[in-house]
């Protein structure tokens, strides 16, 4: 775990994921230790130290870089982890359906009361009754762009719309300054469906064909499919438009400002609608140390702890009482804490059946190959 506050949640470097999977799982023998499996660079390291100091429970902290890695480990069974942090869709709901998570005993988590009921209600589409998890952090998926470069190449471009990326004529004009696509079908395809005005969970062949046409239309203008490193590409000015997570875009903007080379990065959750996601604190069914896991969740849900995490990784949390302790710049950023009006435009997705998933992977493979 790097102490640097780089909130690169998802570097989808599949190869490394596969390598990680072949490593022996964390030893479950030591009952006293707590085994946490979280996204990379997704916590304030001081928080983990404080937990150990207060409870005497040692934390073995392990990170994953893609939901695929997390799911594969949990579905293989006996992962040895006590705390995992899946994203609500498709992983969290699927893990519940597979029986891979245990219900959380609220009696052991008094700080559950700190959770925002409105956000928890949103999560119920994945987990009816909120039985299996508490929101850790959340965010949206949208576009990050370099203000100066976009204005220069396409001054008339609508920077609040998915058209900026998905309209081939605009993409062609912006191609010279570098367009980066997130290499993640589960994140990109629903957004394209939304842009086309279709059902974001559609598995209809005709709808997917339109998605493919749209993606193929911009394929020649995409410089690279990012497996992590989007923050760096944007901050250094090597890319001027990226499909990415809100927190990553905000990180990139910060880093560009620090570098002081006149690169101004902005994030936008497009007006047609942006996908809302929740990363959820959950306990695997076969967790070796469920008691410590409950204590850890209870510990994290304290307002000051959550504020420290948000200040580090720039993603909003679901504990409203933490807000007074969140830095002004982060708190007042509409891209971190959206307004109610913004919220109305956000959408969530549900997991699609396996056959549809395969059709989507095929589509994605063809898109990446450009044929």
């Amino acid at each position, binding site marked *: 775990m790097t102490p640097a506050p780089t909130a690169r949640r998802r570097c989808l470097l*599949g190869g490394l994921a596969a390598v990680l999977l072949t490593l022996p799982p964390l030893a479950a023998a030591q009952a006293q230790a707590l085994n946490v499996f979280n996204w990379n660079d997704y916590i304030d390291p001081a928080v983990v130290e404080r937990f150990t100091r207060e409870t005497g429970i040692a934390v073995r902290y392990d990170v994953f870089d893609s939901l*695929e890695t997390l799911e*594969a480990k949990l579905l*293989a069974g006996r992962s040895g982890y006590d705390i995992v942090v899946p994203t609500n869709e498709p992983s969290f709901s699927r893990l519940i359906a597979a029986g891979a998570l245990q219900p959380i005993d609220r009696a052991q988590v008094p700080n559950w009361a700190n959770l925002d009921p409105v956000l928890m209600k949103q999560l119920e589409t994945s987990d009816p009754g909120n039985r299996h998890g508490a929101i850790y952090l959340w965010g949206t998926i949208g576009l990050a762009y370099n203000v100066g470069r976009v204005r220069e190449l396409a001054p008339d471009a609508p920077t609040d719309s998915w058209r900026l990326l998905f309209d081939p004529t605009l993409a062609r004009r912006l191609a010279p300054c570098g367009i980066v696509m997130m290499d993640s079908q589960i994140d990109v395809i629903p957004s394209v469906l939304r842009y086309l005005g279709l059902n974001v969970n559609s598995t209809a062949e005709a709808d997917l064909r339109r998605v493919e046409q749209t993606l193929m239309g911009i394929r020649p203008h995409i410089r690279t499919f990012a497996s992590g490193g989007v923050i760096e590409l944007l901050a250094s000015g090597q890319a001027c438009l990226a499909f990415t997570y809100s927190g990553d875009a905000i990180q990139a903007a910060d880093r560009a400002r620090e570098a002081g080379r006149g690169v101004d990065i902005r994030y936008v959750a497009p007006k047609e609608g942006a996908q809302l996601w929740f990363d959820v604190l959950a306990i695997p*069914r076969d967790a070796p140390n469920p008691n410590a896991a409950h204590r850890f969740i209870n510990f994290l849900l304290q307002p000051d702890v959550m504020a420290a995490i948000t200040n580090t990784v720039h993603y909003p949390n679901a504990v409203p009482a933490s807000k007074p302790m969140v830095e002004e710049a982060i708190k007042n950023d509409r891209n971190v804490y959206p307004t109610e009006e913004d919220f109305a435009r956000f959408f969530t997705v549900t997991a699609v059946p396996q056959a549809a998933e*395969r059709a989507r992977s*095929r589509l994605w493979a063809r898109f990446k190959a450009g044929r």
Partner: protein
Amino acid sequence: MRLRLPSGRTLVLALPFLWLSLFFLAPFLIVAKIALSEAALGIPPYAPVLRWTDEGVLTVVLNLGNLATLFSDPFYFDAYLRSLRVAAISGLLCLVIGYPMAYAIARAPEHRRNLLLMLVVLPFWTSFLLRVMAWIGLLADNGVINNLLLAAGVISQPIQLLYTDFALYAGIVYCYLPFMVLPLYATLSKFDPVLIEAAADLGARPWRAFLTITLPLSLPGIIAGFMLVFIPAVGEFVIPELLGGPGAQLIGRVLWMEFFTNRDWPMAAALAMVLLLLLVIPIAWFQHMQGRASR
């Protein structure tokens, strides 16, 4: 009556058989079992092949759908074909580059050979992953090669080297070259140079002597080297993933996709099984060639 102990010969033979059945046959059967099961949502994410019904009857449920899909869907066939092609081209490139190297080492003065051989295996002292990553640093748009060419004025803006077929082949050839050089060296060092002198005495030009004497005699080394490059290159995942373009849908990548993205373990297992069979055929051919060569 005396208990008959197995002879030493049997014991010696039993050991590799035990090893193979434990670490090759058993895993293969497990993979085959998963390949013949049905994907399901659960832990593990596939339905059991053997099931006890309530009446105590053992039923076997085999799902041949995955194998049928593999052969009917051109997507998988194309990926296999592309992988075989990439592996074959890589093998040939390694041969073209490795043969002169092995030849030179074999012909070098005795006291220098060990040093040269050590230089061939030297890259293994660094992690494989790290060496592939180093190629990213060399080939990137702002990498060493582009910067040198820019500075020399050969090009006016960076040319794309990374994420191309060129990068893919450069990575594979670089990583697997020692596997080609070592067996070639082993055969070439046993080769008696007197044969070449005899050919020259009989009027053969150097090139002809090489083609009619050296090359055929080094054939076992060529085949061994080619196989050592070809077989791992077919299933290679890391190099295409890190250096190859997005179009390089090789079988390793497809397998990953089935296993991780689609969470279809049975399909991934079926792919792996067919891949294994694809590799067993060239190995068997290699054994056959070796047997013929030693006769």
